[in-house]
């Protein structure tokens, strides 16, 4: 089997998909990054290699997510793309005609507006991570319910309580207050979903024209309570596509196929990289008052990439650029 590998290394999850030449997703792997992107990526590759037939040929590799440069170096990527473009490409391919993408991941959330299949506008959350997956995770843990059950419990609510969603810190104290007053758990959870949706639409979705079809993706789309809250707030049907939690990786695989359409050999280092020793280190460059923190990636002791310097003294010395931009 021949196909394309898409890798999305995010703050919370590391996802890999294998897409065959016809654009069908053959395998999808969703792992927690747990603060160790290199290990998570290697584990993902190990699992993927185990699931794919032995004669699998990787024609191209695409990486995305906040760890895309790191993943691109480790796996040997043919295309390294930002997560906005990857998500947009994936959604417009899997859900033709999509006009609005709501994406909520572990640490970030974004809205992407498409018209006629192309992105016309987008926005990402700024420094505030209120309303992202991490906060839901944290609240689920505090209430001692598995995150998987969060959504269905919220659906049982009949009268959602009103919770301040402007800031995660206030939302938490508000929830505790409501819980101590005796409101039921489902009503509190549903209220939290509504608060987060309000926050998202006011901050990230501010001023955007949200037209159907609306697609909801990213890890938080697994939460049925969030989906219902979006539907109620927007008055529109909200689709959660298959592979909603690995859409970034799907987009990266599609972009890899696009890139390799003209032929050429992939820069993929092979599934063997799962067993290679990679190390990320770093140092503070003291050549000027900027004191840049330079990151250094080594493979079996040999430096293969450096970035983080403003002037290019270190990143340029290896003939490698952190980013296209």
């Amino acid at each position, binding site marked *: 089997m021949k196909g394309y590998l898409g890798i999305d290394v995010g703050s919370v999850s590391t996802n890999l998909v294998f897409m065959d030449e016809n654009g069908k997703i053959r395998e999808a792997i969703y792992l927690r990054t747990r603060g160790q992107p290199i290990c998570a990526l290697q584990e993902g590759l190990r699992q993927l290699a185990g699931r794919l037939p032995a004669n699998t040929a990787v024609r191209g590799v695409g990486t995305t997510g906040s760890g895309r440069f790191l993943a691109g170096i480790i796996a040997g990527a043919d295309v390294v793309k*930002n997560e*906005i473009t990857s998500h947009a490409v994936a959604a417009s391919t899997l859900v033709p005609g999509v006009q609005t993408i709501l994406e909520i991941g572990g640490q970030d959330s974004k809205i992407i507006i498409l018209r006629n299949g192309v*992105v016309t506008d987008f926005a990402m959350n700024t420094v505030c991570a209120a309303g992202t997956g991490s906060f839901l995770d944290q609240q689920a843990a505090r209430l001692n319910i598995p995150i998987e059950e969060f959504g269905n419990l919220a659906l049982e609510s009949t009268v959602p309580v009103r919770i301040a969603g402007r800031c995660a810190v206030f939302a938490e104290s508000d929830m505790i207050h409501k819980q101590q007053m005796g409101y039921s758990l489902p009503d509190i959870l549903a209220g939290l979903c509504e608060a987060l949706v309000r926050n998202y639409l006011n901050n990230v979705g501010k001023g955007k024209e949200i037209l159907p079809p609306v697609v909801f993706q990213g890890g938080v789309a697994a939460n049925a309570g969030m989906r219902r809250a979006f539907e109620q707030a927007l008055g529109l049907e909200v689709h959660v596509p298959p592979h909603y939690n690995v859409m970034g990786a799907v987009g990266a695989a599609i972009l890899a196929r*696009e890139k390799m359409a003209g032929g050429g050999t992939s820069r993929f280092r092979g599934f063997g990289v799962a067993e290679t020793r990679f190390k990320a280190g770093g140092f503070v460059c003291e050549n000027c008052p900027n004191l840049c923190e330079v990151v250094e990636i080594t493979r079996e002791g040999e430096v293969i990439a450096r970035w983080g310097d403003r002037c290019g003294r270190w990143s340029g010395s290896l003939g490698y650029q952190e980013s296209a*931009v």
Partner: protein
Amino acid sequence: MTLKVGIPRALLYYYYLPLWRTFFEALGLEVVISRPTTKTILDAGLQNSGDDVCLPVRLAFGHVLDLKDRVDVLFLPRMVSIARREYICPKFLGFPDMVRHGISGLPPLIDPNLNLYRKDSLYPFFAALGRNFTSNRLAIYLAYRQAVYTQTRYVQLLEKGFFPEEALAVMYQGLTEGREPGGDGPTVAVIGHPYNIYDPYISMNLLSRLARNGVRVCSAENLPETLVREQAARLPKHLFWSLGQRMIGAAWHYLQSPGVDGIIHVASFACGPDSLTGELISREVKRRGKPFLNLTLDEHSAEAGVVTRLEAFLDMIERRQFLPARESV
């Protein structure tokens, strides 16, 4: 010994350096400009300024500190108004006082008022400024004439497509070619306060990142004042912030230019006028439908966030142009 006058490389430096510098040099003074922004300069500024001022002003504190021990006097003009019935941001107006009360051990500050709200001539400002150094009125007048002449030449260079630091290099370091003609990529207009977009540290190398991608960049400073004002006059009410007026006029002009493929608005966090101009620009963008990116900069800005947004913005422009090719995916 020649007296050394310090000018911070911040705030309206990008608009007026040739004017100030020529005037001082014509009076026989030596001009010292603070060094380009580094982490050290920014950190010093953050530590010595109040929490409630915007990033550009806090950065200007850093530049003052950089000059503090190297000059005999510091030149911090009190910028009240640079055009009739218009104002400069009140933080600029209060800047000399904030510095005076916030930093100890300063050399003498020279902070004459520049207020053109009710008059057109800059001469009274220069006459007052010159009296600090000489009583020779003719010398002051001649220095003023020379300063205005040099400033005109600087503005002409900007209108030819040079950016401030490039134009200054042409004037003072004898560079002839200046900026390269630009790549084969799209043309993007970058709209923002000059002290945000032309400071590579603060903008996180925005302009050179774009250039590296073959993007041709143009800015508000490349447009003649009359054209900018003509466009801004389309607002239902006269906008009384001079800098905002320039940004809006330029954005509206570029929105109507078929050769411009997209617009980036750079705002600084905690800037009041920016939140207003940003909104006015984005409303007009919606009517015209050009790719638009609103970048907000603050001292916490991580490069990753800027890179991701810029990449997505450039993809948006590129994929729009190759729309038919996308259908095959």
